[in-house]
C-alpha cells in the first residue's frame, strides 16, 4: 500500500500544432511533493489535467506504480483527489449530497459513510451549511467544498491546481494542513505561482523549461 510512484514519461502536449510543453519528465514517490510553476497560460492546468487523466497527452504517458505494479485508470477513480478551477460540483445539490454522490462512486461500498463525510465538511468549515444547495455558496465556500471533494476516499495522489483562489485565512491554513498531511499519505502536486505554496513542496517543475 505504501509505495506509490507517479512517473511522467516524456509528456508532450500540442494544441493544433502549437507545443504547450514537450518531453516533460518527473518521478515522484511516496512522501514526495512537487510544485508546478510557470506564467499564466503556460500550461500548468493542462499538465495537471493530463496527470489526472482528464485529457490525454499528444505523446508520452503517465504511469502510476505501486510496489512496481502498474496501476490502471481505476486507480485514478478511487485514489486520486483533484482541485481545479475547471472542475465544478453540482449547483443544485447540497454540499452533503455532492459528497455522498462522489464518495458513493469512488468508494465501491454500498452505504456511504455519512459520519466520515460530515467530518470532511467540518474540516473545511462547511458543516453548518451542509444542507444548503451549492448555488447559494460564495466562491470561497465552493472552493472549500472542492477541497473536501478532493479528500474523499483518502487519496494517495493529491493534485491542487491554484488551491488558494478565493480562500480566506481559514481556507489557506486548511490548504497548508492538507499539504503537510498529504506528504505522509502519498504524493502531492500543486500548480501555482503563489510564493507560499512554493515553500510547501520540495521539488519544483518549471514548465517554461519544457517548451522545447
Amino acid at each position, binding site marked *: 500500500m505504501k509505495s506509490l510512484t507517479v512517473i511522467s514519461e516524456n509528456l508532450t502536449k500540442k494544441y493544433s500544432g502549437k507545443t504547450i510543453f514537450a518531453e516533460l519528465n518527473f518521478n515522484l514517490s511516496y512522501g514526495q511533493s512537487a510544485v508546478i510553476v510557470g506564467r499564466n497560460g503556460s500550461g500548468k492546468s493542462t499538465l495537471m489535467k493530463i496527470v489526472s487523466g482528464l485529457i490525454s497527452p499528444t505523446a508520452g504517458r503517465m504511469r502510476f506504480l505501486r510496489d512496481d505494479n502498474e496501476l490502471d485508470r481505476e486507480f485514478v477513480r478511487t485514489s486520486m483527489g483533484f482541485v481545479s478551477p475547471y472542475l465544478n460540483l*453540482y449547483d443544485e*445539490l447540497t454540499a452533503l449530497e455532492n459528497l455522498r454522490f462522489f464518495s458513493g*462512486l469512488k468508494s465501491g461500498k454500498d452505504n456511504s459513510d455519512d459520519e466520515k463525510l460530515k467530518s470532511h465538511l467540518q474540516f473545511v468549515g462547511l458543516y453548518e451549511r451542509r444542507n444548503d444547495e451549492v448555488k447559494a455558496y460564495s466562491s470561497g465556500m465552493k472552493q472549500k467544498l472542492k477541497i473536501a471533494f478532493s479528500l474523499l476516499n483518502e487519496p494517495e495522489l493529491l493534485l491542487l491546481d491554484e488551491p488558494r483562489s478565493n480562500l480566506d485565512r481559514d481556507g489557506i491554513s486548511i490548504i497548508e494542513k492538507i499539504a503537510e498531511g498529504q506528504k505522509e499519505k502519498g504524493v502531492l502536486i500543486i500548480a501555482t505561482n503563489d510564493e507560499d505554496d512554493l515553500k510547501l513542496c520540495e521539488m519544483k517543475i518549471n514548465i517554461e523549461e519544457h517548451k522545447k
Partner: protein
Amino acid sequence: MKNFLRNVRIIFLKDVRSELRTRYVINSLLMFVLVTISIIRFAIGDEKIEDEILTGLLWISIFFSASGGLARTFVKEEEKETSSALKLSASPTEIFVGKLFFNLVLTFILNFLILILFILITEYNIKNPLLFISVLSLGNIGLVAASTIIAAIISKANSKGTLYPVLSFPVLLPLLLTVINATKLASAGINSAEIMGEIRILVSYTVVVITVSVMLFPFVWED
C-alpha cells in the same frame, strides 16, 4: 459487475434528484408538448382525421419533444463544468448507462403524456391497445438509445441546440420509419404475428445502437 450496477444506479438517482430540483428539462418539455398538441388540435379543427395521419402526427410530436429534452443530460454537465468531477469518479460506461436510463424514464413519462393528450383531443382510435403500447415502448427505447450517444457528441460541439435534430434525424430514420408503420398497423387492429418483422427490426436496431454506443462513448467522453 455489482459495482457497475451500483454506480449506474447512483448516477441515475443523481440525475433524477437534480432534475426534480431544477426542473431544467421537465418544465420546458411539458410546455413543448402542450404547444405541439394545441397546434395539432387547432390545425385539425372539427375535421375527422384518418388514424394513419394521426399516427404520423403523434410521432412528429414525439420526435421533436425528444429533441428538446434528451440532449440536456450531457449538455448540462459540459455547460456547468461538472463533467470533470464525474469523469474522475466513474467509468465512461457507467456514466453512459446511467444517463441512458435517465433518458429512458424521461421519455417514457413524456411520451405516455403525449399519447394520453393525443387520445383526449383527437378521435384517435387504437384497435389493438396492448400491441400499440408495446410497439410504442420499443420505439421509445430505440429512440433513447440513439439520442443518448448523439447528445454526448453534441455536448462537445458549439451550436448545441440546432445540431441535435440535424444529427439525430438520419440516424433515427430507420427506427422512425419502422415504428410509424408498426404503430399505424397496431392502431388499425392488426395482431402481433403480422408485424413480427417490424418488431424484430426495432429490437435489433436498439441492440446494435446501444452496443456500438457503449463501445464508442469513451472516445466521445475523453478530451
